[in-house]
């Protein structure tokens, strides 16, 4: 076990845990955002740089600070590590910079994007960004490619998190899509237009943090905040499919089916395309009850949940942390991510 201090809060986690997961054990407003890291997918992380944190003390043995900000999603904890996230001005400034970078080539077409309301980039920009841009140039665009009848690819919205690539690698027998090109011209594509077609391909929609991969059967049907999520399950013939899903209702109609996501937007159990795209009748499912949605989300407007209360701040902290704590107390908003 390793004991670390994260934003002045002590937490004990098993060796080998990443800083991000340690922070998630604390929960609340101190958790760094993650745009590319996805716990169930091996190898993800380190790419978006949204979760950069400052390590003020490397470990109890070697208390020197780390020279650069580190990606908390791939850096493992050491006993005695002191990490600054919301308590470090440097981290907050860099994060603002990352938001800006992610948005300069993003089309900002939220009003017509199906992901709006459940978009990680939208949340990230809202929490950390600024409302204006310094980017005056033309935004990059791509040739449209069709990847099949079920999934819509909007490359302009993509932030190249690689999650869908890892999903295809780890869930499906053969990956037909990947990242082509280089630099800001790199794009998700299938080499010489190909259809992404296998029993688990639909999961790329769930892992996509933005509206780059959306459900064609749900396209433009309804804004997500007008739908009501209900948990349900069925006995799926596919062995690998867990059969536990969230149904998104509008009135009596099931508009779409997704896998269940946890509070950090991560799917822990995957579902097959039959459950996702073909079973859109209530009679196909055994209903369990309303799905839990984060209170910060627009989807759960008017639902009430208890606010998250962070543990007490301990007093024995390095000077740099205490100074920052006084100047810039950690967010205590009940409910963000809670």
């Amino acid at each position, binding site marked *: 076990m390793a004991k670390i201090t994260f934003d002045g809060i002590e937490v004990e986690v098993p060796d080998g845990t990443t800083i991000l997961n340690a922070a998630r054990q604390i929960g609340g407003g101190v958790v760094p955002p993650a745009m590319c890291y996805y716990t169930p997918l091996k190898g993800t992380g380190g790419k978006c*740089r949204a979760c950069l944190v400052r390590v003020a003390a490397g470990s109890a043995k070697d208390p020197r600070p780390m020279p650069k900000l580190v990606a908390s999603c791939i850096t493992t904890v050491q006993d005695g590590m002191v990490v600054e996230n919301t308590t470090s001005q440097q981290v907050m400034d860099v994060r603002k910079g*990352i938001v*800006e970078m992610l948005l300069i*080539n993003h089309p900002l077409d939220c009003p017509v994007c199906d992901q709006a309301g459940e978009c990680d980039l939208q949340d990230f920009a809202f929490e950390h960004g600024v409302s204006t841009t310094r980017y005056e*140039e033309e935004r990059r665009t791509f040739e449209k490619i069709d990847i099949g009848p079920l999934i819509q690819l909007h490359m302009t919205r993509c932030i*190249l998190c690689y999650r869908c690539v890892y999903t295809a690698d780890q869930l499906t027998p053969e990956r037909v899509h990947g990242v082509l090109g*280089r630099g800001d011209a790199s794009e998700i594509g299938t080499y010489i237009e190909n259809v992404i077609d296998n029993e688990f391909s639909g999961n790329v929609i769930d892992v996509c943090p933005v509206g780059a991969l959306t459900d064609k059967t749900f396209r433009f049907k309804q804004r997500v905040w007008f739908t009501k999520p209900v948990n349900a399950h069925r006995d799926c013939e596919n062995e690998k499919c867990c059969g536990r899903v969230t149904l998104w209702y509008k009135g009596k109609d099931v508009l779409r089916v997704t896998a269940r996501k946890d509070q950090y937007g991560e799917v822990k159990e995957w579902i097959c395309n039959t459950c996702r795209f073909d079973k859109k009748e209530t009679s196909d499912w055994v209903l369990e009850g309303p799905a839990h949605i984060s209170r910060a989300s627009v989807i759960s407007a008017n639902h009430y949940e208890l606010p998250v209360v962070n543990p007490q701040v301990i007093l024995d902290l390095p000077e740099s942390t205490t100074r920052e704590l006084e100047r810039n107390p950690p967010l205590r908003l009940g409910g963000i991510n809670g």
Partner: protein
Amino acid sequence: MGRKLLTEHINVEGIDTFDVYRKHGGYRSVEKALKTMTPDEVVEEVKKSGLRGRGGAGFPTGMKWSFLAKPEGVPRYLVCNADESEPGTFKDRQLMSKLPHLLIEGMITGSYALGARTSYIYIRGELLYVLRILEKAIAEAYAAGFLGENILGSGYSLDLHVHPGAGAYICGEETALLESLEGKRGNPRNKPPFPAVQGLYARPTVVNNVETIAAVVPIVNEGGDEYAKLGVGKSTGTKLISACGHLNKPGIYEIELGVPVEEFIYSDEYCGGIWKGRDLKAVVAGGSSVPILPKELILKTAAGENRLMTYESLSDGGFITGTMLGSGGFIAMDETTCIVKNTWNFSRFYHHESCGQCSPCREGTGWLEKVLHRLEHGHGSMHDIDLIVSVAKQIEGNTICPLGEAAAWPVAAAVRHFRHEFEWHVTHPQEATMPGAAYRNAPVLA
């Protein structure tokens, strides 16, 4: 001119063939190492020599070698990074095409020291003709018994392969190189784990520059202590400098580290001064990624001492008034050079070569290029000058690999030392767009 350890015989006719190379003392280090030394003794000599990585970072090679994990029963690899593609750097190309056997000799000795049974030379894809030279030389070395099973009856066996890249600068970053060598997309890996623990095929791996590996040959031949006598302080031995730009005698020079920069530029022994009798304006001392320095700071440090061609002296003053030795790509610019255009050109390169994996570099390099393009073509504003500094700062230090820094440093340094020229481009948009020598009208740094 100082001693030449690597390029002494470079102009001998037929030196690229095994027989001629052998006649001029070639492969002595292999004989010496395999017959009289243990692998650890070779590593010890390299440590004593104080040799530092010649690819740009200047990390002590002996230390890098001793970090290599050596678990039982697991193969280890030595990989030679011959993906030299930094603008301004062209020393390895020359070394490999003229002296292919020197690199092969270094690879054998180095592989023996590290216990590698298979080694790779990852060569830049554009250098196809060099690849053919190397392959021919490797075939000769196999035929002569210096590669393959049971080299010189010592019981040590080594296979050496050359692998071409597909033309990506990023594959010169060591972990991207390993990914590419494994047949994957050349994206840099997240570190840790470092290659010394999990490198090629997740096995312990050392990645060294061509010149570093070549330098192992004289170190083993003459001993680490002898090698360390050359140079100044912690910058030992000789270094190949590829000098280009507005010089009377551009080319590749093997210098003993410690030569004053002024002597290197102006003495007839080396570059012979600035061409057409013009004045020096600025120097990029170590390949396009290191900060540019104006004449007064490249010749003398901020404290007024002579700047020497050493790792320490060039980085004296940090990035405020210093730069880096880098990979030895020495670019001199005369007084007619437009720094804005040059900076834009560098940024264009990094924009083109960013792998696109992490967001600050993917988006930031393109942004820098576009704003610099605007400034260069007379459409910029004063605000844009601060903008590029700010964007460069947002990239620096926040990326997976050093390409982000390589893109940010030249921009930040150009504005730091030549801000007046950027401002001139804003205030004189008409003249700035004119081709040719209009830049001479820009005020000189006060």
